[in-house]
């Protein structure tokens, strides 16, 4: 097929395609300059701006996500802290309640003990008083009885009160002394 080309080339006056025409160079150069400035000053800056914006948008989203994560973490921390606080508070309240309970129980016990002591003491006092009364009445009755008995035995009336009471008193003292010795 190249024979045809060569034949065609040989047939008419041929131009050498390697020899540039001046107009060819001029238009080519002009076109290059136009396209160069077009890309340099217009298209590539626009493209760069877009790439920057896109990078910024991606970075912005990442920053936003980071922020959200930080907030969530802070909230979680706060919640955990509050929970711990609440637990501590509950523990404290429980502790106080237990202590209060113990105090109340102890107070009541004390009061009961005191009451019991008081009751015991008053009972003792009453018993003592009654014993005293019994001793006094017993003494007079025993005296009379003894005198009657003695009168009967002696056969004479111990009318002389002073003498009688002295005898009774001596008798009783003897009785007490013997009682003490027996003890």
């Amino acid at each position, binding site marked *: 097929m190249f024979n045809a080309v060569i034949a065609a080339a040989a047939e008419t006056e041929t131009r050498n395609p390697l020899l540039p025409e001046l107009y060819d160079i001029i238009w080519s150069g002009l076109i290059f300059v136009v396209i160069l400035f077009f890309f340099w000053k217009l298209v590539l800056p626009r*493209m760069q701006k877009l790439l920057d914006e896109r990078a910024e948008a991606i970075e912005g989203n990442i920053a936003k996500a980071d922020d959200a994560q930080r907030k969530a973490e802070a909230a979680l921390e706060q919640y955990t802290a509050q929970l711990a606080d609440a637990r501590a508070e509950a523990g404290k309240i429980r502790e106080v309640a237990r202590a209060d309970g113990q105090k109340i129980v102890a107070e009541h016990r004390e009061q009961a003990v005191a009451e019991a002591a008081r009751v015991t003491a008053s009972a003792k006092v009453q018993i003592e008083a009654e014993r005293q009364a019994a001793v006094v009445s017993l003494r007079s009755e025993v005296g009379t009885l003894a005198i009657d008995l003695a009168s009967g035995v002696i056969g004479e009336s111990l009318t002389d009160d002073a003498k009688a009471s002295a005898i009774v008193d001596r008798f009783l003292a003897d009785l007490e002394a013997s009682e003490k010795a027996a003890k």
Partner: protein
Amino acid sequence: MLPSATGDGEFHGPSINEFFPEAVLFAGSPFEINRIMLIRFLAVAVLLLVFWLGTRRMKVIPTRFQSIVELGLNFARVNIAEDILGKKDGKRFLPLITTIFFMVLFMNITGPLPFLNIAGTSVIGVPLVLAVIAYVAFIYAGVKKNPGNFFRNALFPPGVPPFLYIIVTPIEFISTFLVRPVTLTLRLLMNMIVGHLLLVLFFSATQFFFFTADGGFKLFGAGTLVFGFAFTLFEVLIALLQAYIFALLTAVYIQLALAEEH
């Protein structure tokens, strides 16, 4: 099968003169405009329109059209500039690399496009101008990085025994300062010229076989049509590939100049 200019049923082969069509405006002046120049203007107009609209109201969440424009710009930025030059130098030379990539791409793609049918890069002007710019760019990058030492390091690589400079220096000079711009120009230019000639050949042959040739020869037309279709698709791939290669090699040359030993 002699080609001729007349429509008298002879086969019309493609000619190299197709790349030098008649002037439409300003004939003979340095601002002459012919069909190929008009195709270039159209390609540039479409390029400006696409990128102006595509980047006019850019949103963080892109629309479908913005996504496509971004895809293209990111390809030049990430897969060419930053891959080869790294983030910092990639950003420095990004306007140049982006311009080369899309200028070559939009002018290449007019080759397989119906009704345009010829690449804006199939005339030497664009490949040559871009190759010279790439050449200037990598020398500039090297001299800026390493003033005074760039040429010495490029021509007299350190660590080579001095007597070998007799061989090494001419090789380095030719490969770095002559072969690079020449190959940049010719690779793109020849791909586009040959692509165009091939498509013209297939489709004019199809035309000839279908409407001029006798009987059985008409069957050949189906074959050439299929080939023409396949090569049209192939040319789309070539258009992309050559734009990528041109931009990539520019980046690689700049990178080599920047990485030159101190």
